[in-house]
């Protein structure tokens, strides 16, 4: 009933009707969250696709190329999944990447990021619900996660961060439920999600270690050693299955189970090169590693949000309403990405540049985004527990977030636009598009060095002879004048496998440098030798 007088307007309603409506609304709330996140995800994918930023990351193009090589190329097959990068993101692309649009738009890779974005948002909601947080706190957690331009950008790309976040958060959620209820089913489900995380990025391996330790420790404290041993074996068998498969894969394909660790394209090899160049400044320096990662976290989450998250963590840790092992488990798991990244920087397994701190550019600053779901959960928890301050916290957060969006403040986008994670190879790829598209003949190129050029050229994968093409590569690098109409390589750079091998062959004399660019040079076979070229895939199906 609405009543209007000269001094006020009033609205009177029956409390029962309202509560009934409220209950219905609460039941639908999760579906509404899912719907809104889906809409936001699609909107931002389209936005970043149309402005070209969706494919700006060098790594995104490489991921897409790996997925494509499984289904199309001179030697398609699962072996193209390669080593070093874990296989699950590329496997998930296989059902769609055969389609040229899905490949070249990046959607084949972005789709899993988008789904992961929605899933992580829902998990944040459910996680907070599991911690006894009310509706406002849950929604705040989802908003903190979703209203972050770095997350919105990465979910629009073929990068692996969002997929890892979704699987990690799912695993942690199930494990917290196990801590709360002691039901074995949650432990098994947690192991499943952790296993998936171990097949996406190596952070998943660290999570496995932490999770196994916590399962063991908690069970040992509450029951006995033998039960703890049993539970860890149960958990570990499933959770570590992916790792076992990965070792087996490396042994079968590359004849060395540790190929992904010590191989020529491994992170160790890359980091060693960086160390020789003197830019691996965090190695052996714990405080600097911590500082660098905290800056990455602050730039990704926003300084104010990061502070709220830190306060929320403290509130969670000392909360009396939750059982001690539940809140400690939640706190420890949620801080795992921070510990892993600092450790990786300290040991020299990872590299991260913060402009102004460790050089004049950005590189891998997106690693800071790994703590976003944790910060979202901590903030949602804070809003719930500190009732008198909640509207103040929400108001100030919105104030800062408005300016974050108004300024397009996203450090991951800066890295993609002007940092070292991007490579503007358009000059080389445009040259190939213009000169090679309507001609026959193969392009000899190192995928390890120039995957971005392969992607951006728009040419089908089967036009390229690269390290993964087996006999084609072996033949082309010994007698290039029989195979390659064009060679794309960095002249005088022995890190470029193509240059390293081809420059020492007699056939190289048959080529003329036709284009010179900052990232690579293009050589074309002289006209008189074109007739002797193989221009079709004559080597048949290779094993």
């Amino acid at each position, binding site marked *: 009933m609405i009543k209007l007088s*000269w*001094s*006020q*307007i*009033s*609205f*009177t*309603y*029956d*409390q*029962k009707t*309202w509560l009934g409506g409220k209950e219905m609304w609460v039941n639908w709330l999760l579906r509404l969250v899912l719907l809104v996140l889906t809409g936001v995800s699609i909107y931002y994918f389209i936005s970043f696709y149309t402005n070209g930023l969706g494919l700006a990351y060098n790594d995104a193009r490489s991921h897409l190329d790996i997925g494509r090589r499984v289904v199309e190329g001179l030697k398609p097959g699962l072996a193209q999944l390669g080593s070093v990068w874990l296989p699950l993101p590329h496997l998930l692309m296989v059902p769609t990447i055969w389609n040229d649009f899905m490949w070249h738009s990046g959607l084949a890779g972005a789709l899993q990021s988008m789904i992961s974005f929605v899933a992580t948002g829902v998990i944040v909601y459910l996680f907070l619900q599991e911690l006894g947080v009310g509706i406002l706190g849950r929604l705040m957690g989802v908003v903190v996660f979703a209203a972050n331009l770095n997350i919105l950008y990465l979910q629009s790309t073929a990068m692996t961060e969002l997929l890892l976040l979704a699987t990690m958060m799912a695993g942690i959620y199930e494990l917290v439920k196990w801590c709360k209820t002691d039901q074995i089913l949650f432990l098994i489900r947690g192991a499943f999600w952790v296993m998936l995380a171990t097949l996406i990025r190596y952070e998943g391996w660290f999570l496995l270690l932490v999770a196994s330790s916590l399962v063991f420790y908690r069970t040992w404290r509450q029951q006995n050693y033998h039960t703890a041993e049993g539970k860890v074996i149960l958990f570990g068998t499933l959770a570590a299955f992916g790792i076992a498969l990965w070792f087996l894969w490396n042994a079968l394909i590359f004849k060395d189970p540790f190929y992904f660790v010590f191989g020529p394209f491994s992170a160790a090899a890359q980091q060693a090169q960086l160390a020789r160049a003197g830019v691996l400044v965090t190695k052996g320096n714990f405080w600097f590693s911590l500082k660098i990662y905290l*800056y990455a976290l*602050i*730039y990704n989450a*926003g*300084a*104010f949000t990061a502070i709220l998250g830190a306060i929320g963590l403290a509130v969670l840790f000392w909360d009396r309403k939750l059982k001690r092992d539940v809140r400690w488990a939640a706190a420890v798991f949620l801080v795992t990405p921070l510990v892993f990244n600092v450790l990786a920087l300290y040991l020299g397994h990872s590299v991260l540049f913060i402009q102004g701190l460790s050089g004049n550019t950005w590189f891998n600053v997106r690693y800071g985004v790994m703590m976003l779901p944790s910060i979202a959960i901590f903030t949602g928890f804070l809003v719930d527990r500190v009732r*008198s*301050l909640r509207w*103040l916290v929400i*108001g*100030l957060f919105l*104030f*800062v*977030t408005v*300016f*974050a969006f*108004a*300024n*397009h*403040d*996203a*450090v991951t*986008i*800066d890295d993609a*636009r002007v940092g070292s994670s991007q490579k503007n190879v358009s000059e080389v790829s445009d040259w190939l598009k213009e000169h090679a598209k309507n001609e026959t003949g193969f392009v000899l190129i190192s995928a390890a060095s120039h995957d971005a050029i392969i992607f951006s050229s728009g040419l089908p994968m089967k036009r390229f002879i690269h390290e993964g093409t087996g006999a084609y590569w072996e033949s082309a690098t010994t007698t290039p004048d029989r195979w390659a109409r064009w060679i794309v390589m960095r002249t005088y750079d022995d890190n470029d496998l193509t240059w390293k091998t081809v420059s020492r062959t007699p056939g190289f004399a048959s080529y003329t440098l036709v284009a010179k660019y900052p990232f690579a040079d293009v050589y074309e076979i002289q006209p008189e030798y074109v007739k002797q070229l193989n221009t079709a895939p004559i080597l048949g199906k290779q094993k």
Partner: protein
Amino acid sequence: MIKNKPIIPILIGFITIFLLVLAVKGDRGNPIYFQSELDGRLGGPFESTGSNSRFVLTWAIVEQRTIFFDIGLARFAAPDLVKYHGKYFSAFLPGVSFLGVPFYWLGKLIGLPQLITYSLTMVLALINAALVAKIARKFGVDTLTSWLSGLIFLFATNALAYALTFTQHQASLTLILLAVINAMGGRTLWKNVGLGLILGMGLLIDIPNVIILSPLVMYVLMKHLDIMHVGERVKLSLQFIGFGIVIGILPLVLLLGWYNYQTTGSPTLIAQLIGRSNYPPPANPLPKKPVDKPESIYEQKLVLNSRNLWQGFYILLVSNERGIFYYSPILVLGCLGWYLAFKNGRARGLTLTILGMILITVLNYAMFLDPWGGWAFGPRYLIPVSALLSIFIGFSVNRYKTNPLFVCLFLVLLTYSLWVNILGALTTNEIPPQVEAVNLITPIPYTYEYNLQLLQKNFSSSLIFNLFLINKLPAKIFFYIYVGVALALTSGLYLLVIFDKRLKRAST
């Protein structure tokens, strides 16, 4: 008990005004310099361009009956100057300059236009100290302790340094504190109109005032919403007197619109958005670069940018350049006092609102592209935060006043805070940010070390010192005497607070 003796407040008031007058900037001239001389020398009233541009507008209004500057005034107001459609005018909003008009006119009558105009800020600073005390009193702090809060704000923060300028800080703060008082108690139409007037005036003085007051406005608006449970039914009511705020704000918004229209040609376009011009203009201006590629949206940054937050927090809170807790560590007791006030539960809504105002001010200026405030003394943008925190110092004092550890801490923090801020007030406000200081042809310190150097060179900006004392005692001694009196005043008041409690106990 003690507070009932009228001699105490009279003495406190007299000493306070005396100290303020002692700090007034000036130099000997004929008879006093700067009254007709627009000289931007160090330590003078015109050392900061933030004062100059506003003063020049007041001058132009009174002397030339215009809001535009001639060439001479434009030269003096630069770089806080805008040239638009061939006319020069101030880059700042006109509120402070408008308020200064009657003071200038009065000063002109007695041959001291600059001195009397600047006395506006001094009067406002005194009012602000009184308002801090009043608000503390309304929160339940006893009278003597509330006076202590006011004095700490005035002398132990950079409010003193900016009480001697013609900038927006004290005027903005007066409005903010009046708004806090307005927000107390129930709502009436006239109170809402009053709040609207305060908001309008705040807008006329400085745009960020609207941001700083926004938590308070939300708080007041929520007071017009009533939820009543009547049996099984719930009644939500919204009172229309809230529209009084709109009635109050309208005339001043129209005035601002008129001013903008006269200067920029649009009622909604303020001078600062056009961009500053220098005078004289460069002889060979660089040709504008042809824009063949529009700037990416990721390169366009607003004046408030969330990316600046981390650095802004550091600069404004703890750095030795502008950190509020570096320049006035006594305010840490204000943070403690806020917590005690919050736990106390009295006026909890307003306590939270004030916290909101403090935090939104810090966030706003931490995001600002120049949190240093240019060449300045201490965190000038956080003067409202200093005042709001000072209100709550009274709570800390009330709670722990006889605790030996607290007393020691209080005295140490107070002494340091007085020492630093009086140093700034008696020398100069013009401390460059570090990045500029180290690149000067002759580098100067970027902290209050510069003020110390000036003092060592027997330099003081104090008019009274320069007129009567410069040949009688060194500037350093003058400074120590000043600090000594301020310390005696504040710590004496602290002692009175303790004795007052004991006398009360004895009488009961």
